[in-house]
Structures are given as structure tokens and as C-alpha cells.
């Protein structure tokens, strides 16, 4: 790999030992995949360092104590605890205390404590065509596809990108790897394609077909920002999709031809309503009429408008006894939602607005419940509008699941019965 003068100086230790080590790791990683050089990044979304993983928090604290600072705007992903209100989720106190230790570590390194899977909702929008280094599959696919801000699927090495401001030029940073591979013609009415769960189901269906390739999804006009989020999150759940194009909607695909960069699709598919119906059927195993004990919205984390909508729907109503209802978001949005009175309205109805975490990332995972002697499964039957949430809680929490739209989620929470 060819390094410029500054990168060589970093490697030679002129910027300190932590930077030298980080640059060395990035060079090795880049060389392993044939990258010719490093490039400057505009933004970084840093790995979640969660207390439910053994040694994770300890490692984060130790790393920060070595004095490294991030050199680009850096936000960070979700935790297993709501740090401001740990008691709200029922997390064991010991685990909450351990988790809270990462906050100082992150602050010392200059990382902005967003603890969210949707930093784009907080306004972290790097320029079109910029290079970035992100973790969190639903954010990665959104930045790549909707914003045209390029990133690979980051793992632990995102840390070294933040410390150096560099990443190897490879993978999805390169034009030739951004062309569409598979064509999907969606023959579903605009009326049906006007809900979060419809986009989530579409993503679950397509992701299972394309795996790690680049789908071009033609014939949809997502009316809302969160529809694009739901679609991407699902594509990166049933598959490991990192980039998608919607001709006429996403920025690298003004036309179908542009989406494929002039090449031919490897495969073409036509999708109909029955493909969506199959996803609902597959993800729903709660019998109708059964009592449910958990409803959740906010996978990925909700924005302020989505929370306002929930508050409006719940105003003056009460959710059923025995139902836990979580609306998950980031801490900044919750503060504003408190200021605007949405949180009070939601709490009066018996629901909760949770920050920093979500059911999947929480202490309700079977392995953590076992460690702390909590009830297993911690949830019997969970209803939500997100295919991603359902895919993970089924295995990790061990609950039955139901995929429904958000209006139905609210009515089910109020009746306490699955419909």
C-alpha cells in the first residue's frame, strides 16, 4: 500500500503510539483486501461496547486510557442499558453500572454519546460521495444507499478509522462495487406500500434472495424517510445487504441503467402482494386472541415525529395491564420529546420512552437472563412493526412474535390480546 507523507509519519509514531498502532492495523487490513491506499473519512459511527458481552466495557475503558482521540466527527451505537434512566428497562443494577462506565471512556476519546442506531436522525449527514466508517447494519445501508455517503460494513476496526481519520480504499468505497446486481420490479399498489411494516417486509423478502449483493428495487416511491430506513434495516437483516438502489429515488440511481452502471442484472424478479403476505405469515407465530406481554416501536430508533405520532394515538388511553410497551429512541430526541410533552402523554398511557437501547440489545437476552437469574424467556409474546426486531428477538429473547402495523400495535397494546 502506498502511504502519503502524513500517513507515513503516523505509522512512524510521530502522532503517538495509539495512532501508529491504529494506522498499522488499517494498513494490514487494507493490504489483505488489495487496497492501494488509505483515504480520509468524513464521519465515523463507533461500535457499541455493550456490557452484555464479556470484557467489552473493560476493553473500551482500557483503550481510552491510552490517550487516543478521535479526529473526525464520531457518534456511537447502542448500549444494553438506558444510561439516564436505567431502572426504566428493568436491567440488573450491576449490569447497568458496568455499562455506564463506557460513557466516560467515550467522552475522553471525543466520541459524541449518541448511543443510537439512527445517527442520521440526529443530523450526522456527511456529504454525498464522501468516505466514512460506520458500524450498525441499518445505518450503514442508509448512509450508503439513501445519502450516497460511502462506507463498508465496519467491525472493530472502525475504532482505528476514528483514531486516524483514515480507512483503506476498498469494497463499497469504490465505484465498481456500487453497481446494482439484481433487479426487482415491485408490482404492489402505492396504497399498500405506505407503511413502515410494508417496507420492512419488502426488505426482509429481497434480502433473503440477494444475500450480500446489491438489489435495484424498481417501482416504489417511498413517501417517508423512515420507510427507507425500514427497508434498509430489513435488507441488512435477512441478507447482509450493504447498498441498494431505487431508481428515481436514491441518489446513485436516477434511472435503472444508472443503477446498474450500464451492466446487465444477474437476475430479475417480479414482486407482488403475496410476497409481502408471506413475510407477515413467517414472522408471526402468536395465535390470534392470545394474551401478549410486550409491544415495541422504534426499531431502528424512532425520530421525533414518530414519537409525536405515538403520543397522539395514546392520548387519554390506557394500555392493558401486564403489557410492557417500549418506544425506543436516542437520548437527544427523548429530551426534546419530554420538552414537547410527548413523553408525559405516553407515560400516562402506561408506555415508556426508552433511550440508548432496545429489546434486542437489552438484558432480556436469554444468555444475560441466565447469568442474572431473571425469568426465561423474559418476554412471552412480542408485537412490533419491524422485521428486523422480530428476526432477532425470536432467537435471542426466545419469545413468540407478531408483525403488525403501528396502528395495530397500539390497539393490541391497549387490548392486551393479539389480533
Amino acid at each position, binding site marked *: 500500500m502506498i502511504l502519503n507523507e502524513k500517513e507515513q509519519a503516523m505509522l512512524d509514531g510521530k502522532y503517538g503510539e495509539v495512532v501508529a498502532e491504529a494506522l498499522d*492495523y488499517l494498513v*494490514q*487490513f487494507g*493490504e*489483505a*483486501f488489495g487496497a492501494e491506499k488509505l483515504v480520509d473519512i468524513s464521519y465515523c459511527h463507533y461500535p457499541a461496547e455493550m456490557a452484555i*458481552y464479556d470484557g467489552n466495557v473493560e476493553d473500551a475503558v482500557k483503550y481510552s486510557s491510552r490517550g487516543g482521540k478521535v479526529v473526525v466527527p464520531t457518534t456511537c451505537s447502542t448500549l444494553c442499558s438506558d444510561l439516564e434512566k436505567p431502572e426504566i428497562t428493568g436491567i440488573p443494577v450491576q449490569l447497568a453500572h458496568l455499562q455506564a462506565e463506557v460513557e466516560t471512556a467515550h467522552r475522553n476519546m471525543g466520541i459524541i454519546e449518541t448511543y443510537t442506531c439512527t445517527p442520521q436522525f440526529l443530523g450526522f449527514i456527511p456529504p454525498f460521495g464522501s468516505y466514512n466508517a460506520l458500524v450498525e447494519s441499518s445505518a450503514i445501508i442508509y448512509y450508503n444507499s439513501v445519502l450516497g455517503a460511502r462506507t463498508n*460494513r465496519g*467491525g*472493530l*476496526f472502525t475504532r482505528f478509522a476514528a483514531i486516524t481519520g483514515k480507512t483503506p480504499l476498498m469494497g463499497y468505497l469504490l465505484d465498481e462495487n456500487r453497481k446494482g446486481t439484481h433487479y426487482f420490479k415491485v408490482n404492489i399498489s402505492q396504497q399498500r406500500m405506505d407503511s413502515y411494516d410494508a417496507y420492512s417486509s419488502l426488505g426482509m423478502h429481497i434480502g433473503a434472495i440477494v444475500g450480500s449483493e446489491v438489489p435495484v428495487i424498481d417501482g416504489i416511491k417511498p413517501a417517508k424517510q423512515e420507510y427507507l430506513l425500514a427497508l434498509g434495516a430489513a435488507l441488512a437483516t435477512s441478507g447482509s445487504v450493504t447498498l441498494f438502489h431505487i431508481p428515481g429515488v436514491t441518489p446513485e440511481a436516477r434511472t435503472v441503467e444508472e443503477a446498474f452502471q450500464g451492466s446487465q442484472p444477474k437476475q430479475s424478479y417480479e414482486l407482488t402482494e403475496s410476497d409481502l403476505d408471506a413475510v407477515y405469515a413467517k414472522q408471526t407465530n402468536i395465535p390470534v386472541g392470545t394474551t401478549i406481554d410486550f409491544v415495541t416501536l422504534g426499531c431502528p430508533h424512532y425520530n421525533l415525529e414518530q414519537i409525536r405520532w405515538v403520543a397522539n394515538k395514546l392520548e387519554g388511553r390506557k394500555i392493558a395491564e401486564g403489557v410492557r410497551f417500549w418506544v425506543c429512541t436516542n437520548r437527544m430526541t427523548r429530551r426534546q420529546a419530554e420538552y414537547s410533552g410527548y413523553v408525559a402523554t405516553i407515560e400516562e398511557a402506561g408506555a415508556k420512552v426508552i433511550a440508548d437501547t432496545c429489546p434486542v440489545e437489552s438484558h432480556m437476552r436469554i444468555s444475560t437472563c441466565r447469568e442474572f437469574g431473571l425469568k426465561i424467556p423474559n418476554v412471552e409474546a412480542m408485537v412490533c412493526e419491524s422485521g428486523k426486531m422480530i428476526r432477532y428477538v425470536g432467537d435471542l429473547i426466545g419469545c413468540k412474535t407478531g408483525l403488525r402495523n403501528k396502528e395495530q400495535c397500539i390497539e393490541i397494546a391497549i387490548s392486551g390480546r393479539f389480533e
Partner: protein
Amino acid sequence: MGKTYNVRKIVRGIAEGEAIVYSGSFSFLGDVDLGDGTIIAEGNPNKGIQLKDKILIYNETKGSSGGMVVLITLFKKGLAPAAIVTQKPVDYNLAEGAILSKVPFVCEPDGDILSEIQTGNRVRVDADKGILELL
């Protein structure tokens, strides 16, 4: 009766030791005991062998990105293999794990190592020169 293969360097370093060869795909998460670093996968002919100081040779990496964490944990305990060789191209996450664990790692040899090298043979990996030798 040695034979030399050209390989692609993933992680730098030189190592020599006894080979553990498996023609199937291998996952550090699930196929290895985290406590003592022995292979525990049913169906793997090397079940019961400890990875420490061995040259681990297999077809391709499978399974969760958690495999990276297993390799790093073994490294911290001094139980990581001396080197890793795969017939197929490298997996993203395992590359991260091998770099952090400083385990020499090469892949894509220009020969059929999975049938030409047997478990117990002595081999030498020179990642920097891009060479795998059957000694």
C-alpha cells in the same frame, strides 16, 4: 520431499509447526472450546486437538462475526494457533481478529493443500514472502 506453495498474505509473520488440516469450512465460534482452545466440532476429524502452536489449515471460514472475538480471546490466553491458512479467500471479520491477535494468516494457495498436506505434517508459513512450505 518438501513442496512450496505461493499464498496470499493476510497477516504478516512467520511460523512453523504441525499442521491441522480440515477440508471443510470452519467457524471459530462454535467449533472451538473457548476454555482450552481444542477443536470440539462434531464431524471435524481433528476433534480433540488443541490449536495452540499448530498451523490451522482449512477450506473457508464460516459462521458468525463472533468468530473474531473467539480468536482474540484465545490469543489473550496464549492458546491461539501459530498460523492460519485457508484455501478460499479471507473472511472480513476473521481478518480483523487475526490482525489483532497477530496470528500469521495466508490464503488462496496455488495448489490443493487440503489433500496434499495431512494433519501432523510439519509446515512453515512465511506470510511476508507469501510462501507456505510442506517440510
